[in-house]
């Protein structure tokens, strides 16, 4: 009489992430990304549920002892995915009972004997009677001596029911091969007993019963051998179940299929009735196979298994175990964490049918939680989250852990949630189905922050003085996720001196409006409007080599900006918008200066240098269109960046503003990261050597104020020179090549760079290049090494032939 053991398998991936909720607003115009702290811990819980029906002799149970290989591998890979913080993977799986077995064709334990012609369970069950269950009872470390003479063999039923026996060793004895098999044998994992463990007679008997009913063995016995130290040496002798050899293999997807309930077999059936019964069972099974959906298992694995079948001859329990492991391994390797082999059917025919539940998603649930974990109604509109989910996570797809990770990363990049969990759980209503739960904890919508800092400025003689202590700081506020559509307003004011904020005041107010085309539209355009100011030292007014200090010119910009960004991919985007700004040029003492200054050989300063502004008054107001298109298909190969990046930036003057500025200022940057050697990808593998080729052209037609002139020289132009040391021109061309060679886990590089004004320095009004005695062109070469974020490089300036050592942060390209 076939009955079905319910087994359960617990595996629950919970993706949790924590994100630092504090944001800082530095005075720079760029808004930093929130810091994300990463943590990873694994809580693997395996719980056992006792079978709802005790397994009978008609069913086979395969009991993998250790489900954790999957659990181990997933958190590792997720940790490297870097998106999220703490992971607890728990996948609960309510088992599929398995269909009715075919009569003669099904395989059956047949009461442990029967050679397969028995009543035919026709299925395998996975059963988890976990070692933890027994381990609970090991809390008492005391054990009893067997109290018998040493070296005698004791049958299991001869042991005392009141004693706790300690097993010093466990041996397996294969009766068919007549040898003792080692612990590396695949059967060993089916036994929950462990050497050194303490067990009662009842436990041992239960274990024996489990083994006997699991279907792997035709016959199992246990006997103990007394040891002089009072412990027992346990020998498990077994005869493996075998079936007819098979030359076909088929894998079917039985997920979401209703389970066929077996018809009770009347023990009083006549032979004819029995035959009839078996026939109908067989027919049922055929129908079941035909109805089953195709499964994803690729041809290569199919072939591999066929080979295994062919090599083996007879289908043995060990072989089926191996097949199961192989099939499951493929699924788990591919990220189908919920997939499992639930049954083998059609044994004792020429074909082995492997029934797989792949883990079809029946439902996707998005849930918001408050700080205490209670389910609440969220502020965020669900389409905002839905559009971030890969379609593989939607209903009727097969759950894949990679899709889950992708969803996690995408949702994380919204920066709206402090905690994100992507959690597959079994669907009670649909057997073999998975409900994907996305649990989110929202961040506070409104936030305000005041941070202060004291800066100690070196006074006379380099010593900090009290008078130079200045209280500075930042006041910022943020209103996030307005209307639940991820719109936000943020503002900040930064000053280095609260007593005199007019000296140095940076402010920024920004409104971000994503999903301009509607939240359900796949087109991803974001509107940004901001009000900004900035203050920068102009590299145009910089001296060439050998020129003493050139009085600096500060360029203050304040204005409004509105642009639309369309994201094509994570890295490629197109931004276009309008900028209206007021540019003021000031000298060191903050006086507006319409002309650059220069130091005369006599030591005096004359203010008749190149004009700083278009209007000639020191203040320009202008409006222009700004567009920027970035194509970036770079990716990381073992930590080395490889690919191509092209950026075209255009400022198109509209003739609106002081002196009706009409201009077309354009820049094209092309950077190629060429991988010089094919390498195997994977964590810990060495990165390939990379050749970086870089070209940058900048040009301007029309009105060109000096603050918009292109400057040559500097860490992002031509290394080895100071910012603007080579010149300021109307058209420039920069070329660079860098060869990166991996050394241990970082890289060394050699580079050569050249910058040229293409003779266009004189096309800038006042010719600042010549006035400050700069060359207008220059090359450099050098070498360096990267240490984390810091680059240390030695660059030789080709104009003077002298080299110098630089320490820089970040990347050049």
């Amino acid at each position, binding site marked *: 009489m076939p009955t079905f053991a319910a087994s359960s398998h617990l595996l629950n991936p919970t993706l949790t992430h924590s994100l630092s909720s504090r944001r800082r607003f530095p005075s720079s115009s760029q808004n930093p990304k929130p810091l994300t702290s990463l943590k990873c811990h694994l809580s693997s819980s395996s719980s056992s549920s006792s079978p709802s029906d005790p397994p009978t002799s008609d069913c086979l149970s395969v009991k993998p002892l250790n489900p954790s290989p999957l659990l181990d591998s997933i958190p590792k890979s997720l940790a490297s995915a870097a998106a999220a913080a703490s992971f607890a993977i728990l996948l609960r799986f309510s088992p599929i009972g398995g269909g009715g077995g075919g009569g003669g064709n099904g395989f059956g334990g047949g009461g442990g004997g029967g050679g397969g012609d028995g009543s035919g369970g026709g299925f395998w069950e996975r059963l988890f009677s976990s070692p933890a269950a027994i381990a609970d009872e090991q809390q008492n470390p005391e054990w009893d001596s067997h109290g018998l003479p040493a070296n005698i063999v004791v049958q299991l039923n001869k042991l005392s029911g009141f004693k706790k026996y300690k097993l010093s060793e466990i041996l397996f004895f294969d009766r068919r091969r007549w040898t003792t098999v080692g612990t590396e044998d695949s059967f060993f994992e089916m036994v929950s007993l462990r050497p050194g463990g303490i067990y009662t007679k009842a436990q041992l008997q239960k274990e024996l019963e489990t083994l006997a009913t699991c279907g792997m063995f035709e016959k199992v016995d246990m006997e103990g051998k007394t040891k002089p130290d009072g412990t027992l040496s346990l020998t498990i002798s077994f005869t493996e179940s075998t079936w007819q050899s098979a030359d*076909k293999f*088929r894998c079917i997807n039985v997920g979401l299929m209703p389970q066929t309930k077996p018809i009770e077999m009347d023990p009083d059936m006549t032979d004819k009735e029995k035959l009839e019964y078996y026939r109908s069972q067989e027919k049922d099974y055929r129908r079941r196979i035909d109805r089953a*959906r*195709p*499964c*994803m298992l690729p*041809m290569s694995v*199919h072939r591999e298994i066929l080979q295994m079948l062919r090599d083996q001859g007879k289908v043995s329990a060990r072989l089926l175990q191996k097949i199961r492991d192989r099939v499951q391994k493929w699924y788990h390797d*591919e*990220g*189908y964490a919920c997939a499992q082999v639930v049954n083998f059917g059609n044994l004792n025919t020429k074909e082995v049918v492997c029934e797989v539940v792949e883990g*079809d998603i029946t439902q996707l649930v998005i849930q918001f939680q408050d700080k205490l974990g209670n389910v609440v109604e969220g502020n965020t509109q669900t389409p905002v989250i839905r559009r971030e989910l*890969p379609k*593989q996570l939607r209903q*009727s*797809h*097969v759950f*894949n852990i*990679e*899709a889950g990770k992708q969803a996690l990363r995408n949702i994380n990049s919204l920066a709206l949630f402090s905690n994100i969990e992507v959690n597959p759980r079994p669907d009670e209503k649909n057997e073999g189905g998975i409900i994907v739960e996305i649990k989110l904890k929202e961040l506070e919508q409104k936030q305000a922050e005041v941070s202060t800092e004291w800066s100690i400025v070196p006074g006379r003689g380099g010593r900090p003085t009290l008078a130079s202590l200045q209280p500075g700081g930042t006041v910022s506020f943020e209103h996030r996720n307005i209307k639940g559509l991820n719109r936000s307003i943020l503002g900040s004011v930064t000053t280095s001196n609260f007593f005199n904020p007019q000296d140095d005041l940076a402010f920024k107010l920004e409104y971000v409006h994503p999903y301009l085309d509607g939240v359900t539209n796949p087109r991803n355009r974001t509107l940004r409007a901001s009000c900004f100011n900035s203050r920068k030292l102009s590299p145009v007014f910089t001296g060439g080599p050998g020129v003493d200090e050139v009085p600096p010119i500060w360029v203050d910009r304040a204005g409004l900006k509105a642009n639309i960004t369309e994201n*094509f*991919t994570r890295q*490629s985007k*197109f931004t276009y918008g309008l900028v209206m700004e007021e540019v003021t040029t000031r000298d060191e003492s903050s006086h507006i200066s319409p002309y650059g200054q220069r130091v*005369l*050989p006599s030591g005096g300063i*004359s203010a*008749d240098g190149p004009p700083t502004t*278009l209007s000639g008054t020191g203040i320009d107001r202008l409006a222009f269109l700004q*567009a920027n*298109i970035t*194509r970036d*298909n770079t990716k990381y190969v073992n930590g080395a960046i490889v690919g191509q990046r*092209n950026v*075209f930036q*255009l400022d*198109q003057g509209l003739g609106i503003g002081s002196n009706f500025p*009409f*201009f*077309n200022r*354009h820049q*094209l940057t092309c950077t190629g990261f060429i991988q010089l050697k094919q390498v195997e990808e994977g964590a810990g593998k060495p990165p390939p050597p990379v050749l970086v080729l870089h070209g940058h052209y900048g040009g301007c*037609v*029309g*009105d*060109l104020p000096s603050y918009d002139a292109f400057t040559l020289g500097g860490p992002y132009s031509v290394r080895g020179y100071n910012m603007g040391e080579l010149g300021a021109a*109307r058209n420039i061309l920069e070329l660079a090549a860098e060869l990166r060679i991996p050394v241990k886990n970082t890289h060394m590089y050699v580079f050569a760079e050249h910058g040229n004004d293409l003779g266009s320095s*004189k*096309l*800038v*009004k006042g010719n600042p290049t*010549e*006035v400050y*005695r700069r060359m207008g062109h220059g090359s450099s070469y050098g070498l360096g090494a990267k240490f984390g974020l810091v680059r240390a490089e030695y660059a030789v300036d080709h104009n003077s032939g002298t080299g110098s050592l630089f320490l820089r942060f970040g990347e050049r390209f």
Partner: protein
Amino acid sequence: MASQLIREWVGIQQFPASTQTKLLDLLGKLKHENVSTLTILVMGKGGVGKSSTVNSIIGERVVAVSAFQSEGPRPVMISRSRAGFTLNIIDTPGLIEGGYVNDQTLEIIKRFLLDRTIDILLYVDRLDAYRVDNLDKQVIKAITDSFGKEIWRRALVVLTHAQLSPPDGLEYDLFFYKRSEALMKIVKLGARIRKQDTWGSSVPVVLVENSGRCNKNEDDEKILPDGTAWIPNLVKKMTDVALNGSKAILVDKKLIEGPNPNRRWKEFIPLIFALQYFFIIKPIQGAIKSDIAKEARPSWELRDVGAASRKF
């Protein structure tokens, strides 16, 4: 400076009679060609004898000469008229300061010359300097950049301190030849005179000796070691250049400031914008699209329930 009174050229009477005749002859020739004004611009490095040469030509001590100090930071125009003919000589300060061309001085000179016509440029250097260097080139380049290449068609190279004994027993003529050759080479280089410009080689080189110890001939004329009286010679060469058919250089705002670079190609901006849109932005967008199509997707993304092919 235009308001400055044009004085009678009295200095001419101090010249020996034969010089006077020759000069008046030349002036008459100029008048004959309908040239009644001659504006001469004198330029060169500091301390080469620009002011002395001016004084010598005028025959008066019109500009203060100091052996050690550069003459004053401003250009000076001396105008003299004689028999309806006006001679303007513009003396300029030395262009070199601290090893570089002093842009400021150049700027002052240019502003001084605004709206004037230059008939003759006298580029002054010393004969007894043995070497030409980068500085000479820079000075010539600065002059060319300021007034255009054409000014060299109206130029004379004047070598002062002509009365010298060449070193190492070189022949005077050979020394003069070598020196002028070297200088002309640098002039051609600095002025970017191409080989095709045949007039380039016709820039005359004139010797001058301003010293009071200058040898004189029987007519009391100041003469060079080769016996020519240099003042009439210089004026004659100037006359030749003035009459060589090239155009005088009118210094206007455009010449001083150069063409306004902000105006260049300005009318093409709409066209450039359109070209950028169609030939840069559009192709980049296309490249992005092909990137998206080519992007390597993980196998789980491609493999879908429907996509899985069932093979046995």
